[in-house]
C-alpha cells in the first residue's frame, strides 16, 4: 500500500507520454504518415547522437557538444537578462519617476515575440552566437522584470510601519524589508525566465550558429532528417525540465519561510 502511494505520482505522470508513444508507434507502423520515423528509429538515432557507433554520420556522438553550446547560450542569455531586469525592475517598482519613464515603453515592446526580433537581431549583432545570446536574453527578460516589479510593489504596507517603529527607516528599509519581501516573486520571475530561455533557444540558434540544439533542429529540417529534429526536441525538453527541477529545489531551500512556495 505504502509503496503504491510512493509510486502513484510517477505512474500517473507516465500515462500520457506512454499513450502518446503508443499512438506514435501505431501511426508510423500503419504508415499513416511516411515523413515521421518510428519511435524505435528515433531511439536508435538518439543513441547514435549521444555516443555514436551506429550510423557514424556528421551528427554521431555530438549530443554533448550541441547541448553544451545551447546551455552556454541559455544560461548566458538568462544571466544577462537577469542582470538588466532585476535592477530595472527594482527601480520601476520603487521609483514613480522610473515607472512613468519606462513602463509605457516596455509595455509596448513586451508583446513583440522573440521570433519577430530575429531579422533585426541579425542585422544588429551579426550572424552567430551574439545574436543567439541577444534573443535568448530578450526571451528571459520580461518575466524577470514583471515579477520583480510586482514583488517590490506588493509589499504589505504594514511591514514598512513595523520596520519604522522598530527603528529601521529610509534606505535601510529597502534592504531590510523590500528586498526580502520581494524574493518569492523575484524567484518566480527567474524560474519563468529560465524556462523561457530554453523555450526560445531554437529561435536564438536560427541565427546561423554552427553548434547548438537549435542548430541541429534547423539542420534536420533542411536535410529532411526528421529523426534528428525529434532528437533535438527531446533533448531540449529533458534539459529544460532538469534545469527547472534544480531551480525549484534551490527555491525550496531558499524560501523555507514562505508558506506558498513549496513547488
Amino acid at each position: 500500500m505504502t509503496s503504491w502511494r510512493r509510486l502513484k505520482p510517477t505512474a500517473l505522470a507516465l500515462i500520457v507520454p506512454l499513450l502518446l508513444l503508443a499512438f506514435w508507434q501505431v501511426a508510423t507502423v500503419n504508415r499513416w504518415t511516411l515523413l515521421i520515423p518510428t519511435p524505435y528509429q528515433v531511439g536508435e538515432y538518439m543513441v547514435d547522437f549521444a555516443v555514436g557507433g551506429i550510423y557514424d554520420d556528421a551528427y554521431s556522438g555530438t549530443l554533448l557538444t550541441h547541448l553544451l553550446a545551447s546551455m552556454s547560450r541559455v544560461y548566458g542569455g538568462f544571466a544577462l537578462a537577469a542582470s538588466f531586469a532585476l535592477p530595472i525592475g527594482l527601480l520601476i517598482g520603487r521609483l514613480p519617476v522610473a515607472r512613468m519613464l519606462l513602463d509605457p515603453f516596455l509595455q509596448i515592446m513586451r508583446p513583440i515575440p522573440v521570433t519577430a526580433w530575429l531579422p533585426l537581431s541579425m542585422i544588429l549583432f551579426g550572424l552567430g552566437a551574439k545574436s543567439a545570446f541577444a534573443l535568448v536574453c530578450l526571451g528571459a527578460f520580461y518575466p524577470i522584470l514583471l515579477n520583480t516589479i510586482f514583488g517590490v510593489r506588493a509589499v504589505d504596507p504594514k511591514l514598512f510601519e513595523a520596520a519604522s517603529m522598530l527603528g529601521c527607516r529610509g534606505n535601510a528599509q529597502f534592504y531590510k524589508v523590500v528586498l526580502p519581501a520581494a524574493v518569492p516573486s523575484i524567484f518566480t520571475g527567474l524560474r519563468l525566465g529560465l524556462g523561457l530561455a530554453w523555450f526560445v533557444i531554437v529561435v536564438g540558434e536560427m541565427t546561423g550558429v554552427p553548434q547548438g540544439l537549435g542548430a541541429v533542429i534547423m539542420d534536420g529540417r533542411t536535410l529532411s532528417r526528421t529523426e534528428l529534429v525529434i532528437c533535438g526536441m527531446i533533448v531540449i525538453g529533458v534539459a529544460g525540465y532538469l534545469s527547472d527541477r534544480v531551480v525549484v529545489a534551490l527555491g525550496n531551500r531558499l524560501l523555507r519561510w514562505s508558506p506558498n512556495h513549496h513547488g
Partner: protein
Amino acid sequence: MAKATVPIVDIRDVSKVFKLQDRSITALSGANLSITKGEFICLIGASGCGKSTLLRIMAGFDQPTSGEALMWGKPITGPDPGRGMVFQDYALFPWLSVRDNIGFGPAARRLSTAEVKATVDKFIDLVGLQKFATAYPHQLSGGMKQRVAIARVLANDAELVLMDEPFGALDAMTRERLQDELLEIWERTKLTVVFVTHSVEEAIFLAGRVVVMTPGPGRIESDNVLELARPRDVASPEFNDIRRVLGAKLHSHHSKVASAPSSAV
C-alpha cells in the same frame, strides 16, 4: 519640571480628517487624553469611532489634522522605537525566524551581535517561545504570533506599547491566557499600555482606565478610572456593575445618531 508630572502622552484637542475624492471623513474630533507613565488604558467603542486613528497618531504613523499629540511634552512627528505598535494581524516579517523578528529592532539600533542575542534570549523567555525560536511565522499559531509581536516591541525598549485589537482574532482560551500574560508583563516592567478592544469585558479585565469613544464623528465620550482590585474576577458583582455602566455609555450615542445624521462632512 520633573518627569513624573509630565504625562508620557498628551493628546490635546486632536482632530483627524481624511480627505477622499468626493468627501471628507472626520475620523476623530477634538480628542483630549492625558496618559501617565505606567497606566494601562483601554479604548473601547463601536466600529468607526476613531480608535485606530487615535492609536496611529500616538504611534506617529499619522499626523493630526489639528491639535497636537505630545510624548514627554514633545510633538510626535513619526514612528519611534520608544513607542511600539502591536497590530491585530501581527505584521511580523515572514522571512525572519522568531529570533530574528524579535532581534529586528535591536539590530536596527546597531547593538553588537552579543547584545542582540542577549536581548532576544531575554524576551523569548519572557513570552515562553524558547521551543519556537527558529520557527518562521507561518509555522506559528495566532497566539504565538501575537507573543512574538509583543516581544518584538518590548525588545526594542518601548516604554509605550500601543495595541490595536491584538487578541481580536484569537480563540477565547488563547485570548484569556494572553490577557493574563500581558498583565503580568505590564506589572513586572512598568510599561505604559494603550489597548484598543471591542470587548467591554476585556477592557474591564485589563485596564486601570477605560476610555469610551463614540462615532459620528469619532469623539471621546467618557474617561473611567477603574478602582477594582487585581486580579479581577469577571464573575464578581463589582465587575458586572462596571460592565453595566460602561455598556450604557457605549450605547449612549445611539439616541444622538438619530438626530445627527452622519460623520461625513
